[in-house]
């Protein structure tokens, strides 16, 4: 008899949804979390009078009550939807290249295309053409990949077969000669961590389409409210959690999970583990790599660890409007060249792509009265940060943050003079709190070869399952939350025969 039916390692998004689903299915579940608070990236911290949102910018997959998206459906099934207070964000995003372009799109196909056609009348036809392709692709993708049409064929779904693995840049090139429209329409490449030339149209199209159809959302209390709610429901369903208690080891014998050893040395027997830790951590630190089949290690050795972030968390002593902030989601770019911006993410040079989010625009109660919260994010790989001598780290971090403030100040010049609190997180901060190699927030890079078309999700160890960005789901809130639920369903099916 095992101590628990399932041990879930890590209370990130995927860990939480899998733990909850498993507990609700009547299994005995122990959730281990090395930190003192649930959520992983989905968390908050307090400085002065501000509670800073760590990671959530635009929640995807929610949809409206009358037209629910997949995430709303899942949260509903898990019984937590009524405990959360979601806030619909007014716009899709604003893109600004100071001196060159400034466009704000609504999360609505008609309105967005109208804005673009008004701004770029000579390219009106191209805009329509691009959106037609986007929607056609996504419709066909639903039939083939989601609904699994048994009669799927190239003839029936030509757009899906032609465009799935094409690079996003190639598709832009089919439509647009100038860089403006790709810069505006392609901005969500940064949510996937690869530039348009390296990002498949399949991944990109579904992201843009889903944000438009299901709208971007946030929630009261930020992502910590979601994490706390999932954990509370898990406890209500009879689950057990241990905080400040990471897993030290996953015991494996004869190719199957036999238990978990905690960082405090407690041995827990179980035949099933959901790892919400990084894939590499799971198979090199938690499990003795010699016990992992060589082919699986080899496959993992072909991957590259994905991007992390530098984030500035700023508490301002004024209303958003006082510094000119009118949109929640502002992409502020030094220039339109996404490829160049991506190259900079592997250096410590001034970042050229930033996302500035002001949560108070859509939720005036987010910060105390008369104040607002702004976060500025740039994609950043960990490698150059790992090479900094520890004594130089603080100054390097601050110098980098200073460059980010310089860039966003080109759009909001008074920002700096209203800073009441500021903190800076780097790839090393993410590494510290998530325990992931490279501080990677989206798991492995999602090149074409790393997409679910080519990767095997099944673990070679019997009884081991994965949840979170490293499981092959890709990064971001919706994918990680849903990956945990999926893993749990698989387990329930396995255990119930």
């Amino acid at each position, binding site marked *: 008899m095992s101590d628990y039916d399932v041990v879930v390692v890590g209370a990130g998004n995927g860990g939480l949804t899998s733990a909850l689903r498993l507990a609700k299915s009547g299994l005995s579940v122990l959730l281990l979390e090395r930190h003192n608070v649930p959520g992983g990236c989905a968390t908050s911290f*307090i400085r002065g009078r501000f509670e800073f949102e760590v990671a959530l910018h635009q929640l995807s997959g929610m949809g409206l009550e009358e037209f629910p998206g997949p995430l709303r459906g899942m949260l509903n099934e898990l019984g937590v939807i009524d405990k959360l207070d979601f806030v619909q964000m007014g716009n899709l995003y604003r893109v600004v290249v100071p001196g060159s372009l400034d466009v704000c799109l609504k999360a609505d196909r008609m309105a967005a295309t109208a804005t673009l056609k008004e701004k770029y009348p000579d390219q009106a036809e191209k805009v329509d053409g691009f959106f037609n392709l986007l929607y056609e692709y996504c419709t066909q993708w639903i039939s083939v990949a989601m609904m699994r049409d048994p009669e799927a064929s190239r003839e029936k779904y030509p757009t899906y077969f032609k465009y799935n693995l094409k690079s996003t840049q190639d598709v832009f090139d089919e439509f647009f000669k100038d860089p403006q429209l790709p810069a505006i329409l392609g901005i969500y490449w940064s949510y996937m961590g690869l530039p348009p030339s390296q990002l498949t149209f399949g991944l990109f199209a579904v992201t843009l389409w889903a944000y438009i159809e299901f709208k971007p959302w946030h929630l009261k209390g930020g992502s910590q409210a979601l994490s706390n709610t999932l954990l509370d429901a898990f406890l209500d369903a009879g689950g057990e959690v241990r905080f400040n208690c990471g897993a030290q080891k996953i015991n494996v014998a004869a190719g199957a999970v036999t238990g978990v050893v905690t960082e405090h040395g407690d041995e827990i027997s179980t035949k099933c583990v959901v790892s919400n830790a990084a894939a590499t951590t799971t198979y*090199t630190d938690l499990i003795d790599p010699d016990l992992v089949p060589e082919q699986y290690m080899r*496959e993992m*050795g072909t991957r590259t660890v994905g991007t992390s972030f530098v984030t500035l968390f700023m508490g301002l002593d004024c209303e958003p409007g006082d510094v000119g902030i009118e949109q929640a989601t502002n992409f502020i770019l030094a220039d339109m060249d996404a490829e160049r911006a991506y190259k900079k993410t592997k250096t410590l040079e001034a970042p050229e792509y930033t996302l500035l989010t002001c949560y108070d625009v859509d939720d005036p109660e987010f910060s105390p009265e008369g104040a607002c919260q702004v976060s500025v994010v740039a994609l950043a790989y960990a490698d150059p940060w790992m090479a900094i001598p520890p004594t130089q780290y603080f100054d390097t971090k601050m110098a980098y943050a200073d460059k980010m403030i310089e860039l966003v100040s080109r759009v909001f010049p008074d920002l700096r003079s209203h800073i009441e609190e500021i903190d800076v997180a780097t790839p090393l901060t993410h590494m510290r709190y998530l325990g992931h190699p490279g501080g990677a927030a989206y798991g492995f890079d999602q090149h074409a070869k790393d997409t679910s078309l080519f990767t095997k999700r099944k673990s070679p160890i019997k009884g081991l399952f994965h949840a979170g960005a490293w499981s092959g789901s890709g990064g971001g809130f919706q994918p990680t939350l849903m990956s945990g639920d999926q893993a749990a369903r698989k387990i329930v099916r396995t255990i119930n025969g």
Partner: protein
Amino acid sequence: MNKENINTQIDGYSDIQQEIAVLEKYALDRGVERGQVKQTIDWLHPKTLNLRISEIREETDSTKTFRLVSRDKYLPPFQAGQYINLFVEVDGVRTSRPYSISSSPLQLGYYDMTVRRVDDGFVSSYLLDAVNAGDTFQSTSPAGQFYYNPLFHGNDLVFIAGGSGITPFMSMIRDVVDRDLDRRIKLIYGNRSSNDIIFNKRIEKRTTRHSNLSMHTVISEPEAGYDGLTGFITAELIDELAGDVNGKMFYVCGPEAMYTFVLGELDKLNIPKRRVRVEVFGPPSDATCQPGWPEDVSAADSFQVKLKGKADIQARAGEPLMNSLERAGFVIEASCRSGECSLCRTKLISGKVFHPQGVKLRKSDRTYGYIHPCMAYPLTDLEISI
């Protein structure tokens, strides 16, 4: 036809299969990355420091500096102004206290920790009376938010210190002076008597050599014949000493009573919140005097606290729950012991506690009944999960 077969017909599929085959042939062995994350983080933020006292120096009649060296051959870098939480065992009770580092962040051979005797201080008395060079301790690595931030603090700094609140400032002064930074520091330092002034000579010596540093000591209970500044650190005094307050950053660190007073005085000068930095300070000396404390509970009231699945203990209303836990032998994670860092975050299953103003609880932690035991006072019988 199954899904996999179908997908092989996607344009470009076979090219990628070939790419994968080549990559697998020359794949990286991820085994080499074993332990890398922990190693990287341990250079910056090791979880625990193993320390030894190398020297003890007497600063004043009531204050000593303890020089701490590493037993692991490495002390991580810190920002001038940060603290370590020192774990101690006093009379069989394992507890901890945060102390600011007073030495310069430019050298990492040691951390100096300067401790003044607190009236009835459980830990300070132990450190001052019972600890000797050679004794060993553990602590957290340096933490805290009370440090210079180059992104918005500017170059004109006014340090307002009271008593032992000088310790983080000593580190900041050493940092600026040692690096010859272009920052102007005006230190206003309040003490009860001139004998209490810590680091008087050390700072004075630096003011004579560095024109960007000045110190004004203010004595509240001057002895006969004292001819320096006397009284409290009032708005008038700050105004007179600091000059034009525009663009200056005010840092405040001192005992509880001084905060209430000085922050009120800064308010009179219309200094915006964003230009004031306040170091956290531990539990109030008398929680029952805090705004919001219920009338029907007195400090001496004792409540039963059920530690789910572990034990039942007694806890006094007038004392932080964490202290009662420690006295009963239950040590939970702690760092700031001021309600700020959230390391001790604990689930309250039933009952009611009092958190003084300024305890930094997340909104949704409030909703779901989490408390920070280092600054939570029991008002009823409780059940918690630790």
